[in-house]
């Protein structure tokens, strides 16, 4: 008997062939397995054997293994279920990142800053995501149904449960699309937020389906003992490819392989989120709730030290949590008795250590790492090529031209010497003294109307910089030296707003309504915030030095 399991299957199948009603075949199979299991336990006791029991004795041990294996997963080992879930989360992260990146690139390459096209692209992307999530889930429904049938004999109850399982991802996707962007994250990048929970949804049902059992039944071609090291090797190959792609920016390599890097950035986003939360705690203590811009969940208060703190916490998470967890796993591998467990512990440990080092060590030829280790100067000069590598959400382009602006920012702050911008996981600062000119000023005549209550009246004006002006169509405000800042618009919604400072145009032809304008204390710079639609906010910096 070469393989007891195969023989057991053959034995059961032979019996089932004789069963005329297919309705009971699955149940018959289960009961036969139980019968064989009982037979194995009892045959040693009574000493009586017939032809059936001989077969039972031969096959019983294997069958017992199957039954115990099922019980193991079904009831008693949530740890194993957790591992399976994590596996699917990782897999889904990578797959969804790779799959979605071309669409995002399509959007950024062809429809960049175009309001309507961006919306269309978002709809396409979301539709794709939903289809993807459902397809993945559907593929595993069969297994779920099989497993449910073991537990629940009532068809009605089974159908109800399946229906709930089917609804869960749909509800979650709807929440992700409509709720998260508007309430949780505010005006962050919509695409990023919509994609963020999807991998978890994709991971949810497959994890229930119990990957290990499926894999076992398929008789994997790669032995269990080799799988951990192959996984580790695969991870390193991925790292090498990414590093190579970063060092050859002028080849097609980054374009093709940049999508792979997205998986890492998804994790980075997670880490950043927690760092953000931790940094926020002292702010809460210091400022109280009123000090936080809860309307958009903006944690950044403009203090450069906060930037440094955040970077330190990020690094601490990478090294302290992920890296040390890796070291612990490698160390614990020594105590494992089973060779497969030992190798998995080692491999996963080394992957975690590699990942933490990968994210904190300089990997580019420029020496730049994923973490900004200090408050850099002139970091607002990231170029468009980087966007095409896959860093789509922090496109920063502050050049000395009239096209200079920041796309998709979260929060911003301006002072006499620097402007700081937080954008989807990155904080950029620029020393304004090093910027010669951002915009070529033109003189325009603006048709001003009455001041709005939002616009500070002269008697109520606070002279603490930066001054913030909230704008609507055709309004005019005065700063403390009675410089006039005004905006005219034929129609805000058609994207033809103009902003002037002392009748000098400082911004023209925006696609979005202007939300507010911050003036630096020395009145040298204006930071113009545009609230377009979720995820495509723009931030313009205007040079006022020659317009006083």
């Amino acid at each position, binding site marked *: 008997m070469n393989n007891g399991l195969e023989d057991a299957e053959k034995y059961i199948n032979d019996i089932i062939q004789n069963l005329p009603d297919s309705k009971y075949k699955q149940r018959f199979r289960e009961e036969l397995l139980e019968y064989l299991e009982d037979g194995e336990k009892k045959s040693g006791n009574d000493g009586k054997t017939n032809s059936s029991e001989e077969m039972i004795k031969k096959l019983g041990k294997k069958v017992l293994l199957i*039954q115990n294996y099922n019980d193991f997963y079904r009831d008693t080992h949530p740890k194993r279920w957790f591992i399976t879930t994590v596996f699917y989360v990782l897999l889904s992260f990578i797959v969804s990142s790779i799959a979605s990146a071309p669409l995002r690139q399509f959007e950024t390459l062809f429809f960049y800053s175009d309001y309507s096209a961006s919306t269309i692209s978002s709809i396409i992307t979301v539709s794709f995501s939903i289809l993807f999530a459902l397809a993945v889930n559907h593929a595993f429904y069969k297994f779920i149904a099989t497993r449910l049938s073991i537990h629940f004999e009532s068809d009605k109850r089974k159908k109800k449960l399946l229906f709930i399982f089917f609804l869960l991802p749909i509800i979650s996707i709807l929440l992700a699309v409509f709720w998260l962007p508007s309430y949780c994250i505010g005006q962050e990048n919509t695409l990023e937020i919509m994609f963020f929970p999807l991998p978890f949804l994709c991971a949810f049902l497959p994890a229930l389906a119990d990957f290990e059992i499926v894999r076992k039944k398929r008789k994997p071609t790669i032995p269990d003992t080799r799988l951990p090291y192959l996984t580790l090797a695969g991870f390193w190959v991925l790292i090498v490819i990414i590093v190579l792609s970063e060092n050859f920016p002028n080849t097609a390599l980054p374009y093709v392989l940049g999508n792979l890097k997205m998986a890492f950035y998804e994790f980075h986003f997670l880490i950043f989120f927690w760092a953000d939360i931790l940094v926020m705690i002292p702010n809460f203590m210091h400022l109280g709730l009123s000090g936080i811009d809860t309307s958009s969940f903006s944690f950044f208060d403009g203090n450069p030290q906060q930037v440094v703190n955040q970077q330190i916490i990020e690094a601490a998470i990478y090294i302290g949590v992920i890296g040390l967890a890796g070291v612990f796993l490698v160390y614990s591998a020594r105590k494992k008795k089973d060779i497969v467990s030992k190798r998995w512990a080692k491999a996963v440990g080394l992957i975690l250590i590699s990942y933490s080092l990968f994210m904190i060590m300089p990997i580019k030829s420029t020496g730049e790492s994923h973490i900004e280790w200090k408050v850099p100067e002139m970091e607002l000069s990231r170029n468009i090529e980087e966007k095409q590598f896959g860093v789509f959400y922090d496109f920063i382009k502050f050049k000395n031209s009239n096209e200079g602006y920041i796309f998709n920012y979260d929060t911003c702050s301006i002072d006499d010497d620097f402007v700081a911008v937080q954008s989807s996981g990155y904080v950029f600062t620029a020393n304004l003294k090093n910027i010669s000119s951002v915009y070529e000023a033109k003189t325009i005549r603006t048709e001003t109307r009455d001041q709005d209550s939002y616009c500070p009246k002269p008697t109520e004006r606070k002279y603490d910089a930066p001054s913030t002006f909230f704008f609507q169509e055709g309004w005019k405000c005065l700063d403390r030296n009675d410089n006039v800042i005004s905006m005219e618009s034929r129609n805000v919604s058609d994207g033809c707003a103009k902003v002037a400072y002392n009748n000098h145009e400082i911004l023209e032809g925006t696609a979005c309504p202007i939300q507010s304008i911050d003036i630096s204390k020395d009145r040298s710079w204006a930071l113009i915030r545009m609230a377009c639609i979720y995820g495509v906010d723009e931030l313009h910096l205007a040079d006022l030095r020659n317009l006083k």
Partner: protein
Amino acid sequence: MDSSQEMTRGALELIVLQTLSNYGDNYGYELIKTIEKKSEDIFKFREGTLYPLLYRLEEKKLVESYRKTAASGKERRFYHITPKGEKVLEGEKEDFAVFMHGIKSILKPNKFKLEK
């Protein structure tokens, strides 16, 4: 197939229903063992015979099944004879009694032949 199996075939339903009626709800393996023990090893059911029979009885609503943890600690499908099953069992027992009476009558020694 030996002759005892041939003879058992016609009384399968009766044996299973009566065992369930006499000894209470039971699951496949234990049911086979009970029948073996009580029949003093005369009736030895194969699992390939018993389970399809139980499914047929369930189809006819003579038995019903449910899952329950057995004494072994494992969850098993138990079979329970329904009131309809009890009623049918009574009818079959009567039929079987008539059948047995006929058999016995046939198997009686022929007095005429003996006298002759």
